[in-house]
């Protein structure tokens, strides 16, 4: 793979708990190229978030290795990696501006540079009217945009997003997807996005990773073949419908298995 940005090799994760061992993930391999947009879709509890946190250095794998730009990822998030979480991760005691500037100030970036980057990010995310507002005064979608902006201003080379639009309605998700594609094109960052929405996964990605029920493994990595200039308008195309149906055909059986109904309804029958 040309210009490899990150690699997961033979990753698996086993959680030890009072009820015994839970094999959550793997073994699996994944290579992420520079500037690539990869989405991961899979049934609930298949280890999607564990995969993302392993790649970020937030969770250590039980087996396997993780690397970012050639260096090993240990139990520390490498510089150049940004993460947007599913939950609201804005700081309620800081206003929008200070939330977004948080990482820059911590990194010791010059004040003028902070002003320039935060101003750009606020405009990019359409938050100009709310720069001095506190998260409690914003909607869920706006708070998520603050978190994305907080990641964006650090100019990460690998952006990891864990169901960032999970709490949003379908229309807003499509629009936010457009924003994300715009951000990806402008930054040339590598993006890995976890989602449970098949259409979102197919619309956004260069490659879609379809995961099995727990322990999560890749059952298929699908090249979408979309142009970099794609947008949510792609949902009207026939190829989009076919690809979405294909992903669902691979996922349906796994989703039933995750629900403990694999025997009742055979996998692979697309209705």
């Amino acid at each position, binding site marked *: 793979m040309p210009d490899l940005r990150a690699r997961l090799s033979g990753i698996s994760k086993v959680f030890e708990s009072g009820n015994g061992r839970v094999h959550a993930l793997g073994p699996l391999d994944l290579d992420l190229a520079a500037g690539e947009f990869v989405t991961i879709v899979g049934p609930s509890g298949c280890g999607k978030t564990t995969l993302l*946190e392993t790649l*970020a*250095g*937030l969770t250590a794998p039980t087996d396997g290795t993780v690397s970012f730009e050639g260096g090993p990822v240990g139990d*520390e*998030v490498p*510089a150049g*990696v*940004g*993460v947007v*979480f599913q*939950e*609201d*991760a804005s*700081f*309620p*005691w800081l*206003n929008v501006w200070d939330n977004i500037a*948080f*990482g820059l100030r*911590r990194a010791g970036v010059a004040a003028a540079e902070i002003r320039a980057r935060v101003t750009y990010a606020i405009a990019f995310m359409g938050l100009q009217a709310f720069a001095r507002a*506190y998260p*409690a*005064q914003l909607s869920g979608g706006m708070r998520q945009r603050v978190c994305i902006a907080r990641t964006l201003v650090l100019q990460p080379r690998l952006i990891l997003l864990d169901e960032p639009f999970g709490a949003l309605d379908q229309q807003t998700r499509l629009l936010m997807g457009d924003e994300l594609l715009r951000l990806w094109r402008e930054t040339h960052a590598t993006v890995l996005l976890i989602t449970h929405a098949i259409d979102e996964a197919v619309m956004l990605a260069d490659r879609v990773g379809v995961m099995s029920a727990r322990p999560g493994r890749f059952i298929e990595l699908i090249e979408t073949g979309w142009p970099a200039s794609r947008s949510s308008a792609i949902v009207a195309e026939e190829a989009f419908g076919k690809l979405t149906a294909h992903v669902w055909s691979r996922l349906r059986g796994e989703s039933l298995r995750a629900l403990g109904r694999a025997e009742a309804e055979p996998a692979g029958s697309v209705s």
Partner: protein
Amino acid sequence: MSKVARAQLAVILGGVALLELLTRAGVIGRLTMIPPSEMAAHLGIMLEAGELNAPMTQTFANVAIAFALAVSIGCLAGVAIHRLPRLRRLADPLLASYYAVPFFVFYPLLIAMLGLNRWPLIAIGFAFAVAAMMIATLNGLDRVPRVLRKVARVHRLGRAEEMFLVTLPAAAPHLLAGLKLALAYSFIGVIAGEFILSGSGLGHAIAYAYDSFDNQTMYALMLFVVVLAIALNSALHVWEQRLMARRRRA
């Protein structure tokens, strides 16, 4: 002023007016209580004459030291206990039953250990307040969303940075509640300690006036302490409300 604040003020003023009426009418005898207006007038005279300067300075200094120690040590201990699960398992039942202990029985011991000076009083005020701060700190830290700790790791914050830039601000609502309680308990501990054995301070002055059947002085001092404690707590409450307003949903 809000409706609730107006209602609260009306209840207080109504109570004071009722006491004024009952004491003036002789329903409550002067040996039992003097009219609130006389309390206030006598307090004014005492303040003007500077009679309260020395006891006030001593009591406030003791309360301030007890409060500062309780807040800093209580907060640090809360953080340490939160970090160490084994210590937490040990501390939780002790903290739960902490206020069942009558601390004043230790006063003679404290005098023996620390001498007949201000420190036994400060120790009593500190002992009263420190657990409130520890419990508030633990409550606050327990409720910091895990995702904020992850954000701290993504920003590669060190332990101290994470504590001061993320964890403590996230726990601030509980810490502020702890501050208010610690202030109130510091007052109670120090003034009650002065009542028992001290030879100076506001608590001693109230006890001395009581022993001398000097109702005017006793009630004036009581009024002073009550008004002051309420004023300080209200100031903290206003500060808390201002800080918390930004965290509430619009």
